[in-house]
């Protein structure tokens, strides 16, 4: 560990808001508003946050499924945010994605063999015979067997489909896998199987994961480091132990207090946030969290807090630690 695989700097994504037929659009939804993060080789970075906080948009920008409005994405020493279409297509074999909904992400008109071999065909890897072998190999990696190859996705359960999705992502030996809520559509009993599979594969192939989820316990299970997002920004990012053991940002504290604990006698204070997540098209001034923050100070209403290293390796964007 140590070498950076991917680094995003000042990533922004603004979606224009269409107002009317003739008016120019001059307002934007700031889905992601200046995010910087780095993932080391072989590491898993978890990204948590409420729905609508921009975590999926971040994942999609890193996958370059969305073009960032601003910012740079350095992957293995290349800025992939500036590649043209053809270069981008070729680079895509380096990073693959696992999608949230295993029912929608597999083409219902293709057999499993076609689905898994598609990345190989697209990148002109292996001959037909070798591809066939590779498909069987991949199916076995993910806990399926060769005779599933001729079937269609609708014949499988959610967990099995997600395994197929993983096999498809693995086919071209990518370095980075962006997993966008890969288990949130699955039953709890299947979730852990898929998570364990992902961890086993990581060990075996030295994969690097960007793991996006709203489920704190899932993220704790799989991640090495965790970033907490709120309204298009990272408010706290650090390794798993210090985030779960010693959260600094008031938003993280509130999130942590919401995780259920398997001990009915344990008493603890739950921080209940007031109000809803504000609209990203019109975010609050200063620290975007200040209207809901329990330790809000005067400065929070006007000055945007920067992400600062408060303890070694522990970054947070909060004026409490200035």
């Amino acid at each position, binding site marked *: 560990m140590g070498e950076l695989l991917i680094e995003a700097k000042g990533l922004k994504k603004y979606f224009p808001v269409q107002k009317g037929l003739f008016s120019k659009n001059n307002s934007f939804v700031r889905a992601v508003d200046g995010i910087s993060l780095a993932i080391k080789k072989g590491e898993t970075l978890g990204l948590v946050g409420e729905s609508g906080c921009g975590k999926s948009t971040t994942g999609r920008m890193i996958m370059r499924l969305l073009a960032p409005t601003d910012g740079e994405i350095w992957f293995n020493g290349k800025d992939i945010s500036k590649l043209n279409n053809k270069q*981008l297509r*070729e680079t895509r074999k380096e990073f693959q994605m696992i999608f949230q909904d295993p029912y*929608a992400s597999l*083409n*219902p008109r293709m057999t499993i063999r076609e689905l898994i071999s598609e*990345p190989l065909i*697209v990148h002109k890897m292996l001959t037909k015979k070798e591809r066939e072998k590779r498909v069987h190999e991949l199916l076995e990696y993910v806990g399926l*067997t060769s005779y599933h190859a001729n079937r269609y996705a609708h014949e499988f359960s959610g967990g099995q489909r997600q395994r197929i999705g993983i096999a498809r992502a693995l086919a071209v030996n990518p370095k980075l896998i962006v997993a966008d809520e890969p288990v949130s559509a699955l039953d709890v009993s299947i979730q852990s199987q898929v998570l364990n*599979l992902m961890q086993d594969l990581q060990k075996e192939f030295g994969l690097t994961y960007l793991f996006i989820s709203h489920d704190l316990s899932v993220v704790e299970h799989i991640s090495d480091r965790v970033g907490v997002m709120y309204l298009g920004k990272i408010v706290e990012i650090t390794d798993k132990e210090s985030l779960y053991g010693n959260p600094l940002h008031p938003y993280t504290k509130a999130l942590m207090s919401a995780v259920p604990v398997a001990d009915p006698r344990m008493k603890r204070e739950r921080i209940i946030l007031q109000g809803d997540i504000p609209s990203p098209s019109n975010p609050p001034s200063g620290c975007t969290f200040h209207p809901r923050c329990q330790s809000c100070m005067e400065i929070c209403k006007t000055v945007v807090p920067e992400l600062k290293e408060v303890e070694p390796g522990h970054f947070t964007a909060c004026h409490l630690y200035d």
Partner: protein
Amino acid sequence: MENGTVITQSDELIQSKPEKVKTPLSEFWRKFKKQKMAMVAATFVLLLIIVALIGPFIAPYSATEPDYDNILSPPSLEHLAGTDAFGRDIFSRIIEGTSISLYVGLTSVFIGAVIGTVLGLLSGYYGGRLDSIIMRICDVLFAFPGILLAIGIIAILGPGLENVIIAVAVFGIPTFARIVRSSTLSIKESVYVESAISIGAPARRIIWKHIFPGTLSSIIVYFTMRIGTSILTAASLSFLGLGAQPPSPEWGAMLSSGRDFLNSAPHVTFFPGLAIFLTVLAFNLLGDGLRDALDPKMKD
């Protein structure tokens, strides 16, 4: 757990039975064969195709040789549908005319479908200016009443069966383009297309392998329905004297030649009219059945 094993990864996976892969085609057939009307229509269409192929060999009389001893004779055992003003056996003419009507219907719809589908896919996938141009051209074509457009095209190209095919094809293009464009737009947003983009598939592959198969079911349904309309339009054009020329046993031309004897010999128009009616009805019913069988939302 009987033997006390822990649930391992593979437990959920082994249960699927081998054999019998449910392909989309077998699913389609399972749903289609439940629909009696559509099955009857399909049988009739199949019969039409057979008649069109072997027509000249099974027709009891010649379709074009006049027989002046039997002018306008009413239906009898000898002439099942009677004879026309030249004494030609109408039943034989209908049989030989089948291939003309089917040929016109199928080729014109096929041409229209191919061009319309390509335009619709490009328009829906790339959007932007290309989309605007293609869709505005379609709007222009839509603004003409169908038959008028066809007459206009024939006025430019001159009468004849080949030109009827072109005319009918042209006014099928915009409808196909629109249908395909709208399904392209919805499929383009699907996660599996995003997934194909994320693995690095080029646009050509995405359109051809992921989007086109998804639009195919609406194309097939509309194709089938359209054959009926095309046969009808082609017959109308022939009726107006713009299509098949006498003595060709085209059904529309037969109607046209019989209209002078509507009172004295109604069978001359009745039987070709019945042939057109049944054929168009069969294609429409078949189209309905296909739509129900291909619609993924209709479960059983």
